[in-house]
C-alpha cells in the first residue's frame, strides 16, 4: 500500500500531466503485477465488490474517533468526500504495516463472505495499520470513485511508456468486461495475442464541439453530415453467435436491452456496429426522458419494453466479417454498412440513419435548424476519408449542436458541492414565476467559473433564509440564464415540465428577480419544442 500511496501522492501533488504520466509509468515498471492490474482497474473506475455499507463505516469511524455521528455527518459536506472525511477524523494509527495493494483488496474481498460480526473488527484493524493517505485510499477501495486526475488517455500513455506498446493497441486491450479477478497483467497487457475476449468493444471515437462556423472546415464535399441523435452511445457486438451491448462509459448493457438479441438473426457474426440507442416510436426517436427509465434497470419489465422500445441507429461499422475496419475511410465504411443493413426487416431493432446531402454550408445550416423537429440535437460532421480513431481527437468528427433553449430563472436553493467543489455552493435549484409564487423547475450545477462560484458562495452564506439539512433556502434575488437542450412534460415535477441537461449559461447581474421568466413562458416553450 505504501507504493500505491506514494503513486497517489505523486499524482495528487502535481498539476502537470507529464509528471503524472511519469509517476504512473514508474509504478507500472516497478509494482508487482497484481498491484499493477488493480491500479489500472481502480483508475478506470472499477472497484472490488462493496463489502460494508457506508452507513456502517460512518458509525464505526465516529465511534473510533470518539465523536457523535452527527458531527461526522456535518463534517462530510465540508470535506466533500466520505472516504477522506473518515480518514481525517480517525485517530493516528497505533501500528505500521507494509502490505501490498492486492493484500488490502483481498482483505476487503474476504470481508464479503465473512460473518457480519467479523467485519467491524477487521476494518478497525486495517485503519489502525494505515497512515492518513493509505487510509484514505483504503476507504476509497470501499466507497469507490477514484477520481484523482488520471484520465484513461493518461493511463494508456503511461502504460505505453512502461511497456513500449502503441497507445492505440493498449486502449483497445483495456476495453471490455475484464476484471482483475478474471485476468492477469500478463494476459491483459503483455500477451501478444490477448486471449480473445469475444465481448471486447473498440475504444469509442468522440467528437469535438464545433464552435466556429462550418466553413472553417473547408470543402463541403469532403464532409458527411448526419443528425446528432440524443440517446445512449453504444456498440453492438456480434461474435460467435452471441451479442453484447456496450455503452460509451464501458458498461455492459446487454441485459438492459433485450431487443438486440434478435440482431444475430439478421447479421453475420464478426460484426460490430457503433451508433446511438434511442427509444423509437416506429418513425422517429422518442424524447430522451422516455429512454431514461430503461437506463437504470438491469432487467426490464414487459410494460416498459412496450412503452419505450429501443433501436440502434447504427452509423458506423467497426468490424466486418471479423476484421477490424477502423483504418478504412469513413466513406467506404458507410458503403459497407449500407449494404450490410440493406435487407433488414422493417421491425428489426437496427436502422441505418440517413446521411444529409448538402452542397453548401449555408444549405446545411438550414437543415440544422430543423433538428428539433427530427428529435435531434443538431448535426454531426464527419470527414469522408477519415479513419475511426480512438478517444476525443480533434479534426475529423465534429458535433454541431443547435443553440440551446434558455430561460431566466431565480435561484432559490443552494447546496455545497463535492470533491474539488467542497465547501463551495455549486448545486442550485431554480424557479420561475407563477403569479407571486416561485415554482422550482430545474437544478443545475455547471456553467459558472470558480470565481463566480466563490462569489455566490459568499453571498449564500450571508443570505440563507432557512436550512433543510444540507440544502439552504436563499433570498430569491439572483437571476441566472438557464440553458437546456430539450423540454418535456412531466408528472413528477411540480412545474409540470422536465428539462434535458439544464446548466447555467450566465449569471444575469443585470436582472432583478422580478424580471425572471414565468411558468407560462416555459409552457410556451413546451408547446413549441416539446
Amino acid at each position, binding site marked *: 500500500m505504501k507504493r500505491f500511496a506514494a503513486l497517489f501522492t505523486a499524482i*495528487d501533488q*502535481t498539476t502537470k500531466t507529464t509528471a503524472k504520466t511519469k509517476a504512473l509509468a514508474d509504478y507500472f515498471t516497478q509494482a508487482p503485477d497484481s498491484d499493477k492490474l488493480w491500479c489500472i482497474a481502480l483508475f478506470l473506475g472499477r472497484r472490488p465488490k462493496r463489502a460494508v455499507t457506508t452507513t456502517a463505516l460512518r458509525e464505526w469511524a465516529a465511534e473510533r474517533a470518539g465523536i457523535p455521528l452527527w458531527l461526522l455527518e456535518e463534517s462530510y459536506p465540508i470535506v*466533500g468526500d466520505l472516504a*477522506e472525511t473518515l480518514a481525517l*477524523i480517525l485517530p493516528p494509527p497505533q501500528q505500521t504495516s507494509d502490505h501490498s495493494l492486492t493484500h488490502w483488496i483481498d482483505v476487503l474481498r474476504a470481508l464479503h463472505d465473512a460473518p457480519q460480526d467479523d467485519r467491524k473488527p477487521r476494518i478497525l484493524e486495517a485503519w489502525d495499520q494505515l497512515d492518513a493517505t493509505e487510509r484514505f485510499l483504503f476507504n476509497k477501495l470501499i466507497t469507490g470513485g477514484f477520481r484523482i486526475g488520471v484520465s484513461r488517455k493518461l493511463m494508456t500513455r503511461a502504460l505505453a511508456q512502461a511497456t513500449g506498446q502503441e497507445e492505440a493497441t493498449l486502449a483497445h486491450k483495456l476495453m471490455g468486461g475484464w476484471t482483475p479477478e478474471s485476468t492477469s497483467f500478463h494476459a491483459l497487457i503483455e500477451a501478444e495475442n490477448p486471449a480473445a475476449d469475444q465481448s471486447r468493444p473498440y475504444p469509442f471515437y468522440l467528437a469535438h464541439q464545433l464552435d466556429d462556423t462550418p466553413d472553417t472546415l473547408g470543402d463541403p464535399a469532403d464532409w458527411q453530415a448526419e443528425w446528432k441523435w440524443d440517446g445512449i452511445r453504444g456498440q453492438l457486438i456480434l461474435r460467435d453467435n452471441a451479442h453484447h451491448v456496450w455503452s460509451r462509459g464501458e458498461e455492459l448493457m446487454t441485459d438492459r436491452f433485450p431487443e438486440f438479441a434478435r440482431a444475430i438473426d439478421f447479421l453475420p457474426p464478426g460484426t460490430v456496429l457503433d451508433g446511438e440507442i434511442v427509444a423509437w416510436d416506429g418513425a422517429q426517436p422518442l424524447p430522451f426522458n422516455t429512454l431514461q427509465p430503461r437506463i437504470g434497470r438491469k432487467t426490464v419489465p414487459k410494460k416498459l419494453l412496450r412503452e419505450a422500445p429501443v433501436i440502434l441507429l447504427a452509423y458506423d461499422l467497426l468490424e466486418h466479417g471479423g476484421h477490424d475496419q477502423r483504418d478504412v475511410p469513413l466513406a467506404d465504411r458507410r458503403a459497407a454498412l449500407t449494404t450490410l443493413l440493406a435487407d433488414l426487416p422493417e421491425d428489426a431493432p437496427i436502422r441505418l440513419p440517413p446521411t444529409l446531402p448538402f452542397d453548401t454550408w449555408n444549405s446545411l445550416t438550414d437543415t440544422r435548424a430543423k433538428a428539433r423537429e427530427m428529435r435531434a440535437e443538431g448535426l454531426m460532421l464527419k470527414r469522408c476519408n477519415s479513419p475511426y480513431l480512438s478517444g476525443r481527437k480533434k479534426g475529423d468528427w465534429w458535433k454541431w449542436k443547435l443553440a440551446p433553449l434558455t430561460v431566466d430563472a431565480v435561484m432559490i436553493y443552494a447546496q455545497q458541492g*463535492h470533491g*474539488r467543489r*467542497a465547501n463551495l455552493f455549486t448545486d442550485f435549484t431554480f424557479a420561475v414565476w407563477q403569479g407571486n409564487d416561485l415554482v422550482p423547475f430545474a437544478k443545475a450545477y455547471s456553467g459558472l467559473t*470558480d470565481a463566480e462560484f466563490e462569489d455566490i458562495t459568499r453571498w449564500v452564506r450571508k443570505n440563507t433564509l432557512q436550512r433543510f439539512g444540507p440544502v439552504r433556502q436563499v433570498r430569491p434575488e439572483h437571476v441566472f440564464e438557464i440553458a437546456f437542450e430539450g423540454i418535456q412534460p412531466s408528472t413528477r415535477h411540480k412545474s409540470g415540465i422536465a428539462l434535458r441537461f439544464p446548466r447555467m449559461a450566465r449569471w444575469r447581474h443585470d436582472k432583478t428577480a422580478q424580471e425572471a421568466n414565468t411558468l407560462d413562458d416555459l409552457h410556451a416553450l413546451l408547446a413549441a419544442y416539446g
Partner: protein
Amino acid sequence: MTEPVLTFTDRGIYCPAGDFHIDPWRPVDRALITHGHADHARPGHGAYLATTGALPVIRHRLGQINAEDIAYGTARTIGGARVSFHPAGHLPGSAQIRVEVGGQVWVASGDYKTTPDGLSEPFEPVRCHAFITECTFGLPVFTWPSQDSVAADINAWWADNAAQGRASLLGAYSLGKAQRLLSVLDAQQGPILTHGAVEATNAILRTQGYALPDTIPVTPDMDAKAHKGALILAPPSALTSAWARRFGPASTGFASGWMRLRGIRRRRAMDRGFVVSDHADWSGLHQAIKATGAEKIFATHGYTEIFARWLKTYGYDAEVVPTEFGGEEEAS
C-alpha cells in the same frame, strides 16, 4: 443577574462598563485591537489600543491613527472595566483581551493557536467566566501536523525543486504566516526572495527584534532568474498573477490550514499544499476552552453552529455570535 461584561452589537464586541469596542468592524470612538489582520484592525476609529508588538504593523497598515500601546499582562482601567492583553500565539504581538467588570472576567480570544511557532509569543491560557472563541477550524477533520514535520516537507520540496532547476513559489499571507514560514526555512539551501507585501511586514518585525533570516526583496528591475534555486515567498494572489512568471519554471506551494482538505487543495491548483495554520485546530480549540475554566462560551467566526452544538453536548453553555470577522484564513 449581573450585566454582561461584553455585548455583541452591529459594530462588534462592546463593553458597556468601559465604553469601548474590541476589534470593531465599523468606526467607533475607542477600539481595543487584538492583532493587525485587516478584518480585526480596521480604519476609522477615534482611538486604538494594541500590544507593543502588534502596534507597529497596525500603524503601517492604517496610516495616521491615534494609538497607544500596552505591554502583555499590564492591567489598565478603562471606565468601569479593567483590561489586559495576553498572548494569543496567532502572530507576533497578537493578543487575547481580558476584561473584568465587578469580579466577572470575560476574554475575547481574537484569533489564536495553542501550539508555539517559535516566533509569536506563545498562547497563554487566561482563566475567565466567559470566553469568546473563534472556531475557524472547529471541525474534527482539522488537526494539524507538527510544525517540524511540515517545515521538513517544505524544505525538502524546496531542495527537490532546486535540484530540478525550478524555483519554489510559496504562497502565504503576508502578515504572520509568511514570517512564520521564513523562520523555519533552511536558509542554507538557497536564496529567499520576497514579494513587496511580505517584505514590508518583515522590515517592521525585524526592527522590533523578531529574528528572521535574510531575504532579497523582488524588485521590478532585478533579474529574477539569476537567483538559482530560490524560494519565493508571496501572498497567494500573487502566485497566479503575471508577477509570478518572472521566475521561469517553478513549482507552486500554498501554506494554509485549508490544505488539510484535498478538494480545496485541488481547487487551488497548486502543486503542493502545506498544512500550516495560525488558528487552533480541533484539539487546540478544546484545550484552550478547557484551560480558561469558562462555563459560558461564545463561538464567533468559523463553523460556529456545529462547534457550539458540540460544546453543548459537552455540558458548556455555548452560543453562536455572528461577526464580520473572516479575513486572512477564513476564505478557503
